[in-house]
């Protein structure tokens, strides 16, 4: 098990390295560089000045050399300096990452809890009325685009009913805990609803399959009450594939979070990456994209570990 974990961490590190090169190259190959933006806002800059600045920033060096230089610094924890924010990259990144993580974790917890309740209820009587209603809801959740759902939420709860703030993370004149919470409700609900549909379908399918297994009959023969049969014997076994799927979905959840952030104007990773690419802020864009990769890799690792931990047939 330990060897397996180390192996997976090694693989993740390798993927991260390859991705850093790919992203660095893509950004480097984009037309224009950070100086173009600077020059555009300063008509007085002569070609000599520009060339001097290029040399100072190292932009006159070949791409491979620049990448090597960046990598060497990055491994030592120096991700560079954000040109637009005039701050170290990490200091810009951290608050944005926090906003995104809050959004992701809250909606993940909600969609997992909801999908467990709905999925199990549906699986108890496949083809029944409850199952039909839950399936319909799940398919609606899967099919509705996140951005449309976000717009409708804003329209209903912010514009029409004036119940919730339409965007941002806090009011300027308030900023307390409740205010933060109120700003979180709609983005979290949007993201959670988008995921609950898929999760519910997985829980339902896995529960139906498990409830048909022979050992469930044994559990009943032992005299277990039906609730214990479902929640102890069936759920524990049904969770094995479900947990894997849920952990793996973290990557998609991240991209969903970026979309949701944009819709609700939350200063998270999505907005940060978007702005940094538009303003040619290479260091920031690179680090932002790499963190997105890291989240996906970690969720994959978590899925593997969860599988080994849950299924006794895997771990030994």
């Amino acid at each position: 098990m330990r060897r397996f974990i180390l192996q997976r961490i090694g693989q993740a590190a390798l993927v991260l390295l390859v991705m850093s090169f790919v992203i660095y190259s893509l950004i480097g190959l984009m037309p224009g560089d950070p100086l173009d933006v600077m020059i555009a806002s300063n008509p007085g800059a002569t070609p000599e000045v520009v060339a001097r600045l290029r040399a100072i920033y190292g932009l006159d060096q070949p791409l491979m050399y620049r990448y090597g230089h960046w990598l060497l610094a990055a491994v030592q924890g120096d991700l560079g300096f954000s040109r637009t924010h005039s701050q170290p990259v990490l200091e810009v990144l951290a608050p944005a990452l926090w906003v995104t993580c809050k959004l992701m974790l809250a909606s993940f917890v909600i969609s997992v809890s909801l999908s467990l309740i709905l999925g199990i209820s549906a699986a108890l009587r496949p083809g029944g009325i409850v199952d039909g209603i839950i399936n319909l809801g799940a398919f609606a959740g899967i099919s509705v685009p996140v951005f449309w759902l976000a717009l409708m939420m804003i329209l209903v709860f912010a514009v029409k009913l004036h119940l919730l703030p339409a965007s941002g993370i806090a009011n300027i004149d308030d900023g307390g805990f409740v205010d933060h919470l109120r700003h979180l409700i709609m983005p979290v609900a949007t993201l959670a609803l988008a995921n609950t549909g898929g999760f519910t379908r997985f829980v339902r399918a896995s529960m139906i399959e498990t409830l048909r297994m022979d050992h469930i009959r044994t559990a009943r023969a032992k005299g277990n009450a039906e609730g214990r049969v479902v929640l102890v014997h069936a759920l524990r076994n049904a969770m094995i594939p479900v947990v894997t799927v849920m952990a793996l979905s973290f990557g998609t959840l991240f991209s969903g979070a970026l979309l949701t952030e944009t819709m609700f104007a939350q200063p998270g990773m999505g907005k940060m990456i978007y702005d940094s690419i538009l303003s040619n802020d290479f260091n920031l864009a690179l680090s932002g994209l790499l963190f997105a990769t890291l989240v996906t890799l970690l969720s994959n690792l978590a899925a593997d570990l969860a599988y080994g931990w849950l299924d006794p047939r895997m771990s030994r």
Partner: protein
Amino acid sequence: MTELLNIENISVHFPSPGGRVVRAVQDVSLSIAEGETLALVGESGSGKSTLGYTVAGLQPPTSGTLRFEGVPLTSRTWPAARRKIQIVFQDPFGALDPRMPISSTIAEPLLIQRIGTSASRMARAEELVQQVGLPRDALNRYPHEFSGGQRQRIAIARALSPNPRLIVADEPLSALDVSIQSQVLNLMKEVQEKLGLSYLFISHDLAVVNHLVDRVAVLYLGRLVEVGPREALFGKPAHPYTEALLASVPRIGRKRARNAGAIKGEMPSPLNPPTGCVFHTRCPRAQPMCSEVVPVLEAVAGQGAHQAACHFKE
């Protein structure tokens, strides 16, 4: 011998698409005495497993009564009877919860019945594991680490844990290798002698039945067609179906009898059972009256315990 379980006019029907009804078990009455082994034999689809499930409380009967130690089993009396009637299933690979260590699997019936403390339950699991011939360290392992025969031993230990009086064994050997079958069979006999258990042994393997049981009940299309002590029934079957069933057992050194396989065709569908005697469509002795009059289960001439449902029993 005192009677432990009485099956009184039990019928089990299942609804089928189109509003029709599958009569899996129809009007079966049987009894099992203390310490006795009763075999339930018949072809696939004869309703023997369904009847076994009903006895084990997994399938409520459509009509009829189960009486255990004289008390009718209802939803009110079942919970207490639960620990005294246990079941061992056919497929040991599927019957154990893959996420439960063996110790919990064995101790769970006690936990449900709130018997003892968690320490005493573990001690009981340890005792049982050794009783069925598995090493002590089996307790902390999971089902996938065991072979089929070992898993069936675990299933038996699990069935034994609440100290039952009756064990329904639903073809407990048919999923096992022949070499393992005899080991498990011997274990079942050994446990029975030691604890004075009764078995309802469901099987289609007549050789195994001959080895283990006291009495045999033959089911055909959900009906009880013949029941009697093993020697009497095997020695001189009264019902033509039992006769055909026995003739179909291959034996080394015996030439295939001319009339072996005298019954032709498939068993009719329980959705639409034949009128009169259900066996008349395949019976070599069938007469016109057989398709009209349902034969009742009556004692074979001169023998009270041996009964058959046939107009022309021998």
